[in-house]
């Protein structure tokens, strides 16, 4: 993997520049330029990792600063707790719900958008892109309204065609789905833009050649578009997985993790234990640590899984 990466790097760097870069010797000066970034990252990213771990080994008083050292008790308790595994499962289901569906939708829409229509192309794009500027808070508020059991539009529309809509957010069978829809929607504009940009990188030459060979539209998509789009797809997967694990705003506004813990993912659980009502910051930190390990592990698996299938062209 590293070799491959190194190759790609060298490849993109014109040789001439590499030779000349050694010219500059400026230790002190370089660190002055780097200082703002390094200081912020060390204080607010690296130090908290250690501090988080330390907290996770302690019971932290719900207020004040008292701490009782408990070793790995929080970890063992979490690993044996059905709530924790529920939260892990919610995070995973959420990822499965948002990532493949979100990306498939985005690529499908991008394929349609890249079709050279004669007019109104700008209008179509604008409508599909618009969620890109919507925040998770607003997405949550808009969908809370749409899902409202009493006067919400979704159930009103369903009612109009004779369907008795479910209690979207208060029933365990639909809540996670409902939240997933809101996140997929908010993420759609971004995903479509990236997918469309990826599609437009593909040289028409390939299509012309395929046409000469008599390939059908589906074959062109399957054997030219998707393989050549694979770097973009990997991008989208990586980003969307991270976003799905971090999903918070929509959950906070739509369900607060409920009903029960049906939509309580790990982030939400860390937030609740760390900041809401009676606080258990040690336990929250232990969860955060386990979450971080999961996120890093999943990213790792993705890169390995995609490595052989990504066509860098």
């Amino acid at each position, binding site marked *: 993997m590293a070799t491959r990466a190194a190759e790609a790097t060298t490849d993109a760097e014109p040789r001439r520049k590499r030779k000349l870069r050694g010219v500059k010797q400026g230790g002190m000066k370089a660190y002055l330029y780097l200082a703002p970034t390094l200081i912020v990252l*060390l204080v607010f990213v690296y130090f908290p990792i*250690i501090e988080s771990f330390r907290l996770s080994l302690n019971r932290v008083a719900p207020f004040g600063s008292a701490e009782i050292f408990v070793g790995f008790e929080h970890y063992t308790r979490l690993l044996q707790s059905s709530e924790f595994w529920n939260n892990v499962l919610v995070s995973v289901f959420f990822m499965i719900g948002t990532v493949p569906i979100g990306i498939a939708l985005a690529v499908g829409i991008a394929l349609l958008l890249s079709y050279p229509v004669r007019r109104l192309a700008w209008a179509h794009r604008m409508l599909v892109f618009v969620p890109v500027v919507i925040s998770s808070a607003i997405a949550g508020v808009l969908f809370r309204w749409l899902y409202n*059991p009493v006067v919400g539009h979704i159930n009103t529309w369903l009612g109009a065609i004779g369907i008795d809509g479910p209690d979207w957010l*208060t029933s365990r069978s639909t809540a996670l789905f409902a939240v997933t829809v809101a996140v997929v929607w908010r993420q759609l504009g971004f995903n479509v833009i990236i997918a469309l940009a*990826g599609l437009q990188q593909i040289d028409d030459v390939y299509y012309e050649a395929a046409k000469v060979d008599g390939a059908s539209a589906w074959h062109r998509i399957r054997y030219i578009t998707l393989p050549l789009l694979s770097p973009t797809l990997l991008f989208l997967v990586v980003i969307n997985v991270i976003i799905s694990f971090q999903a918070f705003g929509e959950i906070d506004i739509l369900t607060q993790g409920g009903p029960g813990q049906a939509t309580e993912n790990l982030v939400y659980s860390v937030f609740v234990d760390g*900041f809401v009502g009676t*606080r258990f910051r040690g336990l929250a930190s232990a969860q955060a640590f386990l979450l971080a390990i999961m996120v890093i592990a999943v990213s*790792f698996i993705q890169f390995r899984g995609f490595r052989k299938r990504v066509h860098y062209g």
Partner: protein
Amino acid sequence: MKPTMKVLALLFAFALIVAACGGDDDDAGDDGGTDETTATEDTAASDDTEATDDTEATSEEVVTVEFWHAMADDLGAVVDELVDAYNASQDQVVVNATFQGSYDDTYNALLAAFEAGTEPNIVQNFDLAAQTMFDTGRLVAAHELMDAGEADAFLAAPRDYYSDETGMVALAFNSSTPIVYYNAEMFEAAGLDAPASDWNFSDFKATCDAIQASGVDFCVTFGTVGWYFEQILANSGGLYFNNDNGRTARATEVAFNQGQGAEVFDFLTGLIANGQAPNLGNTWSDTDSVFFAGEAAMIFDSTSGARGFQDNADFEVKTAFIPHSDSSDRNGVVIGGAALWLIDSGDAAVNAAAWDFMRFMTTADPQVTWHTGTGYFPVLAELQTSPPAELAAFWDENPNFVTAIDQLATTNTVNADGSVNYAVLGGRAGPFPEIRRIIVEAYSAVLDAGATPQEALDEAAERANQALSDYNEFFGG
């Protein structure tokens, strides 16, 4: 391959490198970060002391008192009215009132403010916060500043609720109880009389059948919040915590999964499961929409909504007591709502100024304004025993405001054998906010996951007991 494609490839390549050496990076960060830890803690410590010094400096001049409250919208407007009245009434103290969001938000904000050293002088904090507030050690207890016998001006229920063994700690300001609001027109259409003051679950369900038979979608609506379970359990004589509801010693275990608990929880979850109430989740406001829209004939809510329901419904709203279990007699209710807590600023003059305002808020005139503007009942005994003419007239015209008062007045605070009825005194425990959240989840365990009420309560009890033990570790069991 086009240039931007190369860029993509390049970015991936770098991401791969990062992924590959992610572990090493962390180690590097660890080494570099050790000094960081101590350095930061030093700064933090020195800043902490600064923060405490930061409280208002005082002199002979005007003292500013920061007051945090949790009253939104219409209720908040009445608070502002009272604060303005106080500020206008004298020229030594200026009270600066800030709305902090819901009770939960205010509670969270206060704990965060203690950390940041930005706590107010007075906070309106809710019933459940009592034990935590005691434990913070940051308060000036009301009894330290009260004149002899002053506490007895309060109704017994709010006085005792906010008292520890030495006396009243916080001043009950806005006290409420849950009541049943109902759509009088629907009751009439269904041929129903007003509910009896003493009605059990069977009576309630019979009423529901009649209502739904008359074509109304739902009999009742209520949010799956913890409060109604607490209150109906108390009304049925059940304890929430051990050690006499945490009143005679610190609560170490919950008791809500024993005795009446399952029966009460079965009633509440059953209303939803049987289609007699819509499943709106943990809400205080969607229920109102259902009630106002005429989809349900009754609603459980706080008496503090009396003004809001009466003014906003386009039908006649009447009120009734909450029901109790079939297997018990009616016990009565626990007071809810919130109290004013005086936080020690370390400056006697500021504390005295804050106390002056708190005392003002619990005197007769402000309490009347507060009661008639909201529905929270007056906390002073004299206003109930000998109400001023104006208040008596108001009650004649607005019987909905009397229900909560009667419901509390008829509460059995003493058992037949003369012992204290701890069920209606209300539970007290440090992690009560957490435990309330656990109960909200127990609703879902029954409604969505098919647990029986007993199973759901047992599981909730296990988690609640863990929270109690984690909390109590810091406060000597």
